[in-house]
């Protein structure tokens, strides 16, 4: 079976030789190709080339079209990105500097005609042509409730959310949601078949249960209204979200849930049940210091929890650039070994 068929089987609870094994190697592309970070992240062809090279090198199941999270801010006019030699880029200049800027914020009429799309689209189109028929091609989409962190910074966004006028928050959410829906459609049309819906503000670690119900849920509803949910993954940016799984499961048809390493995986699997794929995620910050044996042991622990009953995927989080190659190999070897299905 191809990695894509294995993923589809896992989602549907059908027989497969093993669980899907996702590994998010994005920043590693800079070193793989030996180019500067700025050159790499601004060039969709290099991004795709690196993803394909890393796929060949490590043999995991998926590729990414994401260059860096802050890319989405460029659609709204952000021009200043801070590139680093040893990690992902940061947004260095926020387009919303004061609450008054929200009224002036413009969502592009057609994001696929915006300059910020061209390289993402190019990357996706190469990945689709090369491996789209056999491999999951992932796209990263920031939810409306979280997009303001890229537009105004999390500090100002929390300030607005906690103390600002409701109509202004709603105006911003409408614009962010309109962008999200366009981006989802564009990524899907360009070849992405796994669409990661990133909503840290959908985690009660960020906003608490009350605000989740009063604020986060309605924004998620608006984002996903009449959307084809095929391939959508619920993800809270490595924040735990077990206590909202029941609500999310009840209301939306996510095919997969990407569980925080800080959460109780067994509980998450029980809560998700047969409604979707449970993704057990390794704590790859620990992988900076762990030995390969420790990595193997952790992969085994995750697979032992998640594999019984099927509908399980093994995955990584942010996979920092400084994770030793020996640990990446140990993780993948162990995931293929312990992820074997009867």
């Amino acid at each position, binding site marked *: 079976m191809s990695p894509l068929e294995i993923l589809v089987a896992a989602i549907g609870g059908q027989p497969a030789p093993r669980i899907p094994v996702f590994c998010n190697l994005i920043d590693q592309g800079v070193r793989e190709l030996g180019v500067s970070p700025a050159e790499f992240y601004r060039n969709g062809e290099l991004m795709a080339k690196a993803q394909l090279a890393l796929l060949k090198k490590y043999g995991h199941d998926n590729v990414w079209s994401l260059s860096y999270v802050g890319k989405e801010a460029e659609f709204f006019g952000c021009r200043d990105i801070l590139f680093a030699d040893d*990690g992902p880029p*940061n947004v260095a200049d926020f387009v919303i500097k004061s609450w008054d800027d929200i009224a002036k914020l413009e969502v592009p009429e057609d994001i696929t005609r915006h300059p910020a799309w061209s390289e993402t689209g190019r990357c996706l189109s190469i990945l689709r042509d090369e491996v789209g028929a056999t491999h999951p091609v992932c796209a990263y989409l920031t939810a409306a409730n979280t997009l303001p962190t890229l537009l105004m910074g999390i500090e100002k966004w929390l300030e607005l959310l906690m103390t600002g006028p409701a109509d202004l928050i709603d105006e911003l959410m409408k614009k962010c949601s309109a962008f999200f829906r366009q981006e989802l459609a564009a990524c899907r049309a360009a070849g992405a078949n796994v669409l990661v819906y990133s909503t840290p503000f959908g985690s009660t670690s960020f*906003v608490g249960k009350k605000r989740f119900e009063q604020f986060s849920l309605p924004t998620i509803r608006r984002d996903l209204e009449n959307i084809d949910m095929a391939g959508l993954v619920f993800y809270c940016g490595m924040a735990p979200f077990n206590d909202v799984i029941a609500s999310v499961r009840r209301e939306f048809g996510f095919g997969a849930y990407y569980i925080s390493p800080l959460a109780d995986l067994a509980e998450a699997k029980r809560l998700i049940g047969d409604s979707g794929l449970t993704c057990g995620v390794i704590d790859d910050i620990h992988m*900076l210091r762990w030995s390969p044996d420790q990595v193997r042991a952790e992969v085994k622990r995750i697979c032992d929890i998640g594999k019984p009953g099927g509908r399980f995927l093994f995955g990584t989080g942010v996979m*920092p650039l400084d994770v030793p190659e020996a640990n990446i190999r140990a993780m993948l070897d162990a995931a293929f070994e312990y992820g074997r299905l009867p």
Partner: protein
Amino acid sequence: MLEPLIKAYNDAVFETDRDAAFAVVDQAIAQGVPAEDVVFHIVIPAVEEMMAQLTLDPDANLAQHFMTAQIAAEVTDKMLARFAHPPEIIGRIVIGTAQGDLHSLGKRIVSGCLKALMVEVHDLGVNVPAERFVDAAVELDAPVIAVSAMMAHTANGPQGPRRVRELLHARGLEDRIKLVVGGAPYRFDDQLYRSVGADGWAPDGVTAGKVIVDLIRARPEELAALALPLEGQENSGRPFVFSRSRGETA
């Protein structure tokens, strides 16, 4: 007399209700409660209470931490303007985000709590080179450097806290200046702070306030030298001495 006010203020802070917290403060002032008592008997105990509660509460969230610090800092600022005499600070620190890191929220939460706890905070901003942290701590005679890093490479890379530790060591400052770190990567790996050479860490901004205050308090010989007024205020008259265990005035 203060009990109902204290309870109302604590409830407001826990519910992250800034307006309600300010209403309690306004009510206290209207009832003739001195600004000093508002800070030392209501605000500081509330921050300490929140530190304890948020540490123990598995449902504590980022919004609560943010608003706890925000309300504490705003109320303290408002009350300080009404103080009969400038308060005595318990210490001073320098704080900033690691080089390459532009995430300022953690720093803001820590700073808000520390200001309310009568710690003089020198905020160096974001993307701060290690040399600047050390130079500023030496120049200001600050016993604590606090580095916030939200990304793996800024928390663990060679230009962040590791470089600060190298400089402290190279300049023979390790006995005088302690290094504290915070940010998401340290939450995932609670021993990472040791490997980057930090003396302490905290899983969140509010707890970081406590860790830093504890470090300052652990250095009694330097506290005496740090009995200075808050920035921009003259130390005239009899200062309020913050009781380190209960937030009482003397």
